[in-house]
């Protein structure tokens, strides 16, 4: 293998090298520093007489005497079922002191796009045990549903709660072991603090989830450029486990904001024409290449479900990171600062949240026949109550009609009883929907115009109305 000592320029995370033999685009590079340290990088641009290399571990300490070797292949992830239970750094090197990993296969980390013709539409309900999700924004197997959060909010608690509780109820036959309906968890951390990392690891260890997890850790003080490969390693592992080994895999990626910052840094170093707010113009495509690696494939048992977490800079969801994410993923769950300060746990704001795959994943035979109607009605009633809160501040409760007052009460109780369940409670979908009916029965029957009349007859709590009638008299 040819070694070059022809570095011409070092700039930010990039190194430019003169070459006299062709080098493949995207190929992996090893750079040996004068003190013997080796770093890895990737070819970003390849011309006949020079290449641009992005160095994962950063360029600090590299000088023009460093020697450069092109490995003649693109970045690969060694995959095997034995990865379950292992902890690795952001470049896939084990850091848990465990045995050497003997790969079954080495897979290209960029991954190929799933042929849309080969996909199977996701429609198996995942019970997360969280009412605001199961009832209002249902997650299904093979979905990509990000958590839109912001700094200082408990998004990690929610992610952990989901990872702990998620099951697919009433899994049919094949259930020789209970794990059939549990998920293998792939955890890809990008630039999170050591404290946060401990929080996750402690929980994984406490609950025994670690044995069915693969952890990739790029921490805040690890090189930023490395972050661009961490999620790809995680997703390559996930695809292997799902589509070769029949696992249902849940991938948690946190924090996508740090990933995007790394992209921006590389873009700036390359002096690219920046897109919105300095992020690269191709960030949509880049993110899509991660998020679209969720799904189901016809004829394969397993599935890849993604739960990426991002913190919105300035709590602003029009910022390019949440914005582009929302345009690619199949909905989003909003963590809300106000609800959090009111002590609601998990502080999910259901109104802007959305699960686009919900409609096909719920209903008779999947969850319950009344699910869709109950959800629609709760959304309508909660939105109405929310609106009235502004008004009531101005005119007072007395100035509002009886019905308007009920909507206000509904909104309060919805937050306090339905959303606020704590991080340790897992509710079945039945419990969630029954709770929904308890709340909806505060409203008069003919206000429930989103619900089929037969369903109202079946589920409406007459005694609650009786109370109301009394109150009116």
């Amino acid at each position, binding site marked *: 293998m040819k070694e070059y000592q022809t570095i011409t320029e070092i700039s930010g995370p990039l190194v430019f090298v003169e070459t006299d033999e062709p080098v*493949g685009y995207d*190929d992996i590079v090893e750079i040996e520093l004068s003190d013997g340290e080796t770093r890895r990088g990737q070819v970003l641009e390849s011309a006949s007489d020079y290449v641009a290399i992005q160095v994962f571990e950063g360029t600090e300490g590299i000088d023009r005497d460093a020697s450069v070797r092109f490995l003649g292949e693109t970045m690969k992830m060694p995959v095997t079922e034995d990865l379950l239970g292992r902890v690795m750094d952001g470049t896939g090197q084990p850091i848990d002191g465990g045995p050497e990993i003997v790969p079954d296969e080495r897979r290209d980390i960029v991954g190929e796009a799933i042929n849309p013709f080969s996909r199977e539409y996701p429609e198996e309900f995942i019970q997360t045990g969280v009412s605001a999700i199961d009832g209002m924004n249902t997650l299904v197997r093979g979905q990509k549903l990000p958590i839109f959060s912001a700094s200082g909010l408990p998004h990690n608690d929610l992610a952990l709660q989901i990872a702990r509780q998620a099951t697919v109820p009433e899994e049919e036959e094949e259930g020789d072991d209970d794990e059939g309906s549990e998920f293998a968890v792939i955890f890809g951390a990008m630039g999170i603090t050591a404290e946060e990392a401990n929080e996750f690891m402690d929980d994984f260890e406490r609950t025994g989830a670690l044995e069915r997890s693969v952890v990739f850790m790029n921490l805040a003080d690890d090189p930023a450029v490395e972050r661009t490969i961490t999620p790809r390693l995680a997703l390559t592992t996930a695809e292997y486990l799902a589509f070769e080994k029949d696992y249902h895999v849940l991938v948690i990626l946190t924090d996508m904001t740090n990933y995007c910052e790394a992209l921006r840094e590389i873009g700036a170093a390359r002096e690219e024409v920046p897109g919105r707010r300095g992020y690269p113009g191709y960030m949509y495509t880049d993110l899509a290449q991660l998020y679209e690696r969720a799904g189901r494939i016809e004829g394969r048992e397993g599935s890849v479900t993604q739960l990426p977490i991002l913190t919105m800079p300035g709590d602003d969801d029009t910022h390019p990171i949440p*914005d582009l994410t929302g345009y690619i993923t199949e909905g989003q769950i909003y963590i809300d600062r106000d609800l959090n300060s009111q002590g609601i746990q998990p502080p999910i704001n259901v109104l802007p949240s959305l699960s686009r795959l919900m409609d096909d994943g719920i209903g008779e035979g999947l969850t319950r026949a009344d699910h869709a109607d109950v959800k629609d009605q709760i959304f309508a009633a909660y939105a109405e109550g929310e609106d009235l809160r502004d008004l009531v501040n101005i005119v007072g409760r007395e100035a509002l009609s009886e019905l308007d007052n009920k909507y206000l009460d509904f909104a309060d109780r919805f937050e306090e009883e339905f959303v606020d369940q704590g991080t340790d409670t897992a509710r079945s979908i039945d419990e969630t929907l029954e709770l929904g009916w308890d709340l909806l029965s505060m409203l008069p029957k003919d206000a429930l*115009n989103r619900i089929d009349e037969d369903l109202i007859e079946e589920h409406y709590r007459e005694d609650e109305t009786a109370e109301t009638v009394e109150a009116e008299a």
Partner: protein
Amino acid sequence: MSQATDTDVREDGIIESVSGPVVTARDLDARMNDVVYVGSEGLMGEVIEIEGNITTIQVYEETSGVSPGEPVEGTGSPLSVDLGPGMLDAIYDGVQRPLDVLEEKMGSAFLDRGVDAPGIDLEKTWEFTPEVEEGDEVEAGDIVGTVPETPSIDHKVMVPPDSEGGEVVAIESGNFNVEETVVELDNGEEIQMHQEWPVRQQRPTVEKETPTEPLISGQRVLDGLFPIAKGGTAAIPGPFGSGKTVTQHQLAKWADADIVVYVGCGERGNEMTEVIEDFPELEDPTTGNALMDRTCLIANTSNMPVAARESCVYTGITIAEYFRDMGYDVALMADSTSRWAEAMREISSRLEEMPGEEGYPAYLSARLSEFYERAGYFENINGTEGSVSVIGAVSPPGGDFSEPVTQNTLRIVKTFWALDADLAERRHFPSINWNESYSLYRDQLDPWFEDNVRADWPETRQWAIDTLDEEAELQEIVQLVGKDALPEDQQLTLEIARYLREAWLQQNAFHDVDTFCEPEKTYRIMDAAKTYNDAAFEALDAGVPVEEITDIDAAPRLNRIGVQEDYNEYIDDLEDDIESQLRELY
């Protein structure tokens, strides 16, 4: 994608540099927009710039591992689609490679590269029935025969637009594959059932006419307030999750077009899968056949190569024009045109072109208008009339409509369906904002609605618009003082407007019945609200307090009309009940 047919011998080139989807080659003998095969794996690309002996190519496949020094082979043909029977019920990638064939050839659910496949099956035989006889003179565009392509659609075999025409000397009925000659002309020209056409070139027509017929969508807010014409153009801008795709899918399902070309441009894989799984099961409301029988899908999902995103809209519109030439009304949906514009931007920035507004190339506006100009109601060169309606979704960053793609699109299209995040958040679907949206076709389509639905369609609609306008004004006051502070007649208007919103404008795409609403039903729901309005104001004039009027138990039934299959009877009863319950109050 079609193979090169040109037999020019062209010199191979050598790759000079690789940067993502953009590759440069040295010493390649090629013309602008020629298709070339790049590298030892033969990845498909297109020439997009020639400067001295350096040719720049956008590559329609991933370029990882490709290195300088590898060969580039020219084909001498521009990027073209292969047009013929077999395109309906098909799903293509952005350069017309059938995704089902690719799955089979690659033996994998993942898209490998360097695999090519013809756009239409070259071996499959079709039953050809001549429409002309020996001795007839035929010209370019003329229909020479038909093929029953699907139960819904007879495919018309046409003389290619660039043919010189002549006298038919041989034609026979029978089963042929698309490469076999079915007609011979006296000048020796042989006509097959397929023809190629370069995607970036509009297929010729005689003239564009003013559209006078609506493209009925079965969506109340569209047909009722903001109709699009057959041959018209529409844009649906909206932030993420506001309902662009659901609206496009609804149109693809229920619009009364003969042919639907659905282009998934840089969006989600699962959304294409949904169409593939649902459409074969759904019935075309006009013909009763499976919807897939009239549908051609083109998918370049967001994780597929970005250059093919740029080409997929052209592939789509060329296929649409071809069916238009047969005399069909074609509707093309592009979801999302923003991804196409971004693909242009990405390629342009790799070419280091001078960026225009927000980094988009200066030619963004020209490309958009060229594309939408290919829509229209046309007299075809064979004398038939056909139309291409184009409905483009737009995904503005941050939901801000002032950005370049939305603005440039709005300058061209005549129908604007503005999606509203606020409405979507309260689950008012379709969340098309009735105050901001418009249709410039409304007046020219009124005669059709008067003749085919009800003579007072325009007046009733105007009443609905006025009521909604008044509501918007009153809401501003209500926000400050509460509803009860308003005079009684205004409180009543608010209540009527609420029913217009909930019973008429809202429509649940996921309800078996409500998902499609014929124009008659659209009219009747609106008219039922008006019936309530008229009777209610009479009662108010007679001194009945507004609470009693709004409290009648018949009124909430308005919200249930949408889900009624036998709506006529339901509405008749409801209107009777409303009137009699109100009359009882005074």
